């Protein structure tokens, strides 16, 4: 029995990498059902089929959003969060700029890997 070796250390968050097409979330896609996952899962969480590494982004749309205005350890409120459905990819939780919730379906783009380790997006103007 061997542990999965694809994980990026111990950080549980999706990992953002740089590509020629811009920032991307490094996850996996199922070769059986096509399900995209934002994480290095050892097998498809939807159908348990085999997975291969896949990159997702940089563009997507907001599914929903909020601004957190209460203290959370390690963070300074207020801060905006959004569930973003990456194009042909998974839904990821991302940080967003500003102190207003983003409207549903707002087009957004992944920002380069954040030193603090968060997935972050900016609104496409």
């Amino acid at each position, binding site marked *: 029995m061997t542990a999965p070796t694809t994980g990026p250390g111990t*950080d*549980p*968050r*999706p990992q953002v990498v740089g590509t020629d097409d811009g920032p991307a979330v490094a996850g996996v896609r199922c070769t059986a059902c096509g399900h*995209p996952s934002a*994480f290095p899962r050892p097998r498809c*969480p*939807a159908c348990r089929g085999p997975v291969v590494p896949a990159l997702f982004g940089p563009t997507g749309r907001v*599914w*929903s*959003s*909020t*601004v*957190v*205005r*209460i*203290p*959370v*350890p*390690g*963070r300074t409120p207020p*801060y905006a*969060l*959004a*569930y973003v*459905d*990456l194009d042909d*990819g*998974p*839904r990821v*939780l*991302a*940080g967003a700029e500003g102190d*207003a*919730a983003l*409207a*549903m379906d707002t087009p957004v783009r992944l920002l380069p890997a954040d030193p603090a*380790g*968060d*997935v972050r997006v900016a609104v496409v103007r």
Partner: protein
Amino acid sequence: MTVAVHGVGTSHFGRQPGRTLTDLAWDAVREALADAGTEDVDAVWVGTVFGAPGVAQRVLHALGITDVPVVTVENACASGTTAFLEAHESVRTGRYRRVLALGLEQMSTAFDGAITPEPTDAEGLSGLAMPALYAMAAHRYLETGAATLEQLAAVSVKNHAVAEHNDRAQYAGRYTVEQVLASRMIADPLTLLQCCPTSDGAAAAVLAPADGSPDEVLVRGLGFRSGSLWDHRSAHVWGYDLVAATAADAFAQAGTGPDDVDVFEVHDAFTVGEVATTEALGIVPPGDGGAAAAAGVTAVGGARPVNPSGGLLSRGHPLGATGLAQVAEVVWQLRGRAGGRQVEGARTGLVETMGGGVSGIDGNGCVVAVLAR
């Protein structure tokens, strides 16, 4: 075998940092055992989330409950109802004859405010406090036109008002929609009065084979699931599909549907939670949850009373205790002894508890129980 609830009890719910968990548990256990007319149980299932290792036995031995199997379960906000469900199954299958289900939690000494997001979780480490998860459900409801801000606030108005008749509740009061919306913003669009408070409390139930005793309340159906994947394919807000699927299991076992239920105790940790749950349970059609609250449909005295206790929003939400407090409320309602918050003529009741905190799935666990006289 039909299993019955023979006794229930709860402590007061609220910030009680000066009381020990043993004090809180004693209030609940003493009342439940007296209600059941017994001093002896053959096993104990305990639901708690943040309790220290050994908290169940530490509390129980101090109450003189020793030398019996004690099992502790953790299932986020559904821990208490998970203990109830497992206690039920152990009686139903004949493993034990009389079983105590106990839920307990002391939040005020563990957290300054909201529960700290779990740093080993992808979204927890990303700053997703629980209010933010529900806030995104609320935002989605608003943006799709499924509810209005005023309708969300109406849930808070309703549950705080009815809690004036529940002297065990942490908060009660006559608020207006405007006051709810003007309270401090926690996570847009959810304001303080739309969020459950930090609470300490315990609640208990005694289960045994139905024997026809006049006060017994029968367990007619139970559903219990963990969440499916919640991802880009999910059209509904977080938790909705899990509640719907779990309720379908419980209704199938009970041979009933939502229209047969007279009173509901559901998981309103946040206002939008009650709105979504009333829809997912089939109490009202999809998209009508907010309008139903605003129109009084889900108030005591309305056609489909939801959360006559005041719900988590007002009674408080000590995680492990909540599910068994919901059970206690429904038992009191079905016995006709709920005082000023009584749903007249209630014969069938439903409890729904929904726990979260693990990202990527539709909920850590959901329990739905159908109870009847």
